């Protein structure tokens, strides 16, 4: 049924139906049909209504009256949905919690809705990362446009460097602003505002924009085709970014200068700007724990390569190296490192400092360094040769040299690492994997919840590292990592709020996370295999930031660059190319390994480092960590 028909035809008979259509007609044609929506609301009346409305918009609707059920649906079918609409007040789970989970695990755009229109709640929606907030009663016009969020998310995260990136971005932004302006209005205003927004969007801009629009309109009947090539914030790229930011100073860094410093062809200011924004948010969230923002950044960069496992004490250190890691994971690592001064083992540490220095340099020069920028590559690491670890360690040392680490903190992690069985790292990694959102951090502990989050979580890569594979690497590291070399303290924002849970409890977490990680690493690997091509390296970066695009396999549109990834991801069901895959660990990890051979090296190191860090952090009891509420976002200045 054609939406316009639905409108116009209504109750047939004689009457003119024109009055009913409240001006939303022009928008209807724009809606990409087939958008897969999951709507969650405990109110059956509203649920039925939404389902009907969404069907009228030609979307594919799945309705769900319980948040837990919705989450499990999403987890089971990671790429089965394009967007989630959820009520705020639900009996079994707070809508915001669901929002965070979805953001972390699946990185899907989530729209919140409620009869509650108080500004504080709306603000909460914004800070939790909702792409929109609808006030009940929701009108058709508002729903007709939700597909924009899917498109926008994909476009802003990905940008084709050679494409008219800036124009697109600008247009996108304008659009976004218009949209946001519109959506924040009351429901009744939506239709008119939306139209305005649409008109502006359509008529504004260059012909290029028009082309894009047309392209979207024509070509994309299927929502999944709306993907555009994007810029992948690969580990390497992110490292460069962080280096630039550090150089300028986190507070003073501006996109333009960062861009200049980075000197990456094809990268636009807009790419950097949006990335910076995410990075800042990430840092802020971590800000509560870490006070060494500047340091953290540094360590962030360099630390990544360093094997995580053994370098755990080098939290600050790792952070730098882990710049690629999702901010949260790093933060966690940091926190872990910082938090556990007692555990550090001395044996391994002293060596690392030296290594760090070297590694830092080597790190920079080696594009392969998987800066765990959200790359779960850790999974693969099993196969990584120990030799790589050295590199990382060196890097770590290098990093460390640059920053004063809290030795005490460092020591602990190291010690912890060494002593702990392999599985630990995973759990710890989990922590780091947490996406920028607070939730992610939390989840790290809980193990399951956090890991899947993939895309948002920077540390996705971390998690992989943590995986068991590095046991070997890990042990080696231990010796190499000098306790003293923890640039941890320095890593800004990496402060992990919650201490890492001890390994034992993470066994299961590890398992679960593994699944998630493998997928991540898988992505990372696949991307890496593409030679770090900006375009091709879609996956790794996404993990770092809420770039769900990667994980969304359904984005065939990303095919251009993602094809390799997609193939890999899409074909094997179990493979779960997305880090989001939760629980697919077994198959995916296996596959990932084979694919990511090349990356193993790096990852293994990283994983070791991660695990070491995590261990030290004291991946505390899952329960405590899991309690998200403790981690209030409010603490994080935004």
């Amino acid at each position: 049924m054609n939406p316009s028909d639905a409108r116009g035809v209504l109750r047939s008979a004689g009457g003119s139906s024109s009055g009913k259509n409240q001006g939303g007609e022009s928008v209807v044609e724009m809606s990409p049909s087939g958008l897969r929506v999951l709507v969650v609301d405990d109110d059956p009346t509203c649920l039925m209504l939404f389902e009907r409305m969404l069907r009228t918009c030609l979307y594919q609707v799945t309705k769900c009256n319980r948040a837990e059920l919705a989450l499990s649906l999403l987890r089971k079918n990671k790429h089965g949905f394009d967007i989630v609409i959820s009520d705020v007040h639900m009996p079994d789970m707070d809508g915001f919690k669901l929002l965070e989970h979805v953001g972390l695990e699946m990185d899907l755009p989530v729209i919140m809705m409620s009869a509650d229109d108080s500004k504080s709640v709306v603000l909460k929606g914004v800070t939790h990362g909702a792409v929109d907030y609808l006030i009940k009663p929701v009108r058709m016009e508002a729903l007709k446009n939700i597909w924009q969020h899917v498109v926008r998310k994909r476009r802003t995260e990905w940008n084709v460097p050679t494409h008219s990136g800036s124009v697109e971005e600008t247009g996108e932004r304008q659009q976004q602003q218009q949209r946001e302006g519109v959506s924040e209005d009351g429901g009744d205003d939506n239709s008119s505002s939306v139209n305005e927004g649409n008109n502006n969007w359509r008529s504004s801009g260059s012909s290029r924009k028009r082309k894009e629009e047309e392209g979207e309109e024509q070509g994309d009947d299927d929502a999944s085709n709306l993907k555009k090539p994007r810029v992948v914030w690969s580990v390497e790229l992110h490292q460069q970014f962080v280096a630039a930011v550090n150089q300028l100073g986190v507070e003073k860094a501006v996109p333009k200068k960062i861009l200049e410093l980075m000197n990456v062809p094809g990268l636009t200011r807009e790419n950097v700007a949006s990335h910076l924004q995410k990075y800042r948010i990430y840092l802020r969230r971590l800000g509560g724990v870490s006070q060494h923002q500047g340091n953290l950044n540094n360590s962030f960069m360099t630390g990544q390569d360093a094997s995580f496992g053994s370098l755990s004490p080098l939290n600050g250190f790792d952070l730098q190296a882990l710049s690629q890691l999702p901010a949260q994971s790093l933060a966690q690592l940091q926190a872990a490192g910082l938090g556990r001064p007692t555990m550090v083992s001395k044996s391994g540490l002293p060596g690392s400092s030296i290594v760090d220095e070297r590694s830092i340099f080597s790190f920079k020069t080696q594009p392969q360094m998987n800066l765990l920028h959200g790359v779960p590559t850790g999974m693969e690491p099993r196969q990584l040769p120990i030799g790589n670890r050295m590199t990382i360690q060196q890097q770590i040392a290098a990093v460390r040299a640059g920053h004063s680490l809290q030795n005490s903190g460092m020591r602990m992690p190291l010690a912890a690492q060494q002593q702990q069985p392999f599985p630990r790292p995973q759990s710890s990694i989990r922590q780091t994997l947490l996406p920028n959102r607070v939730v992610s951090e939390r989840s790290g502990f809980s193990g399951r919840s956090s890991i899947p989050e993939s895309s948002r979580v920077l540390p996705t890569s971390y998690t992989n590292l943590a995986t068991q594979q590095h046991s070997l690497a890990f042990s080696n590291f231990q010796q190499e990592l000098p306790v003293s070399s923890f640039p941890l303290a320095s890593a800004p924002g990496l402060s992990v709020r919650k201490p890492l849970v001890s390994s034992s409890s993470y066994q299961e977490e590890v398992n679960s996370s593994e699944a998630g990680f493998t997928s991540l690493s898988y992505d990372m690997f696949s991307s890496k295999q593409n030679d770090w091509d900006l375009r091709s390296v879609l996956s790794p970066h996404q993990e770092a930031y809420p770039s769900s695009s990667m994980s969304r396999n359904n984005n065939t549109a990303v095919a251009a660059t993602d094809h390799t990834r997609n193939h890999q991801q899409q074909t094997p069901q179990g493979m779960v190319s997305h880090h989001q895959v939760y629980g697919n660990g077994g198959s995916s990890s296996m596959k990932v390994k084979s694919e990511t051979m090349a990356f193993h090296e790096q990852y293994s190191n990283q994983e070791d480092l991660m695990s070491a860090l995590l261990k030290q952090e004291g991946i505390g009891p899952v329960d405590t960590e899991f309690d998200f509420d403790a981690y209030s976002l409010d603490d994080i200045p935004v």
Partner: protein
Amino acid sequence: MDLVQMQKSLQDYTKSLFLEGVLDSQFLQLQQLQDESNPDFVSQVVTLFFQDSDRILNDLSLSLDQQVVDFKKVDPHVHQLKGSSSSIGAQRVKNACVVFRNFCEQQNVEACHRCLQQVKQEYYLVKNRLETLFKLEQQIVASGGMIPAMELGF
């Protein structure tokens, strides 16, 4: 009465509900979602609303009758009722819920009792009116006629 008359009656009746504020434009949205492929959509949704609301009102009565009223339980109920009533266009019910919630926040038991009564009153009113409306529609359809599209000037 003949078909045309019935149709006119229905239109007038519906209009009056809007004019009285019992229903608002959201109800029109519902009507717009009904078509040949979903001929009973409005009555389905509204029926669901009635069932759910009956349950909520029941829970509310129980909660408010407790020795110690737990407003943490009362408020979500009222909130949901507010949401569902606004979604189907039961304007007066929604407004009554808004007032109710304010008193919940103030934890004013006495006022909440009054609010509950008010909500119930509005709810039974709209329920009654809508049931009448549906009956009229059924009569028309049974007579072989079509439900006239609403022509609203507002």
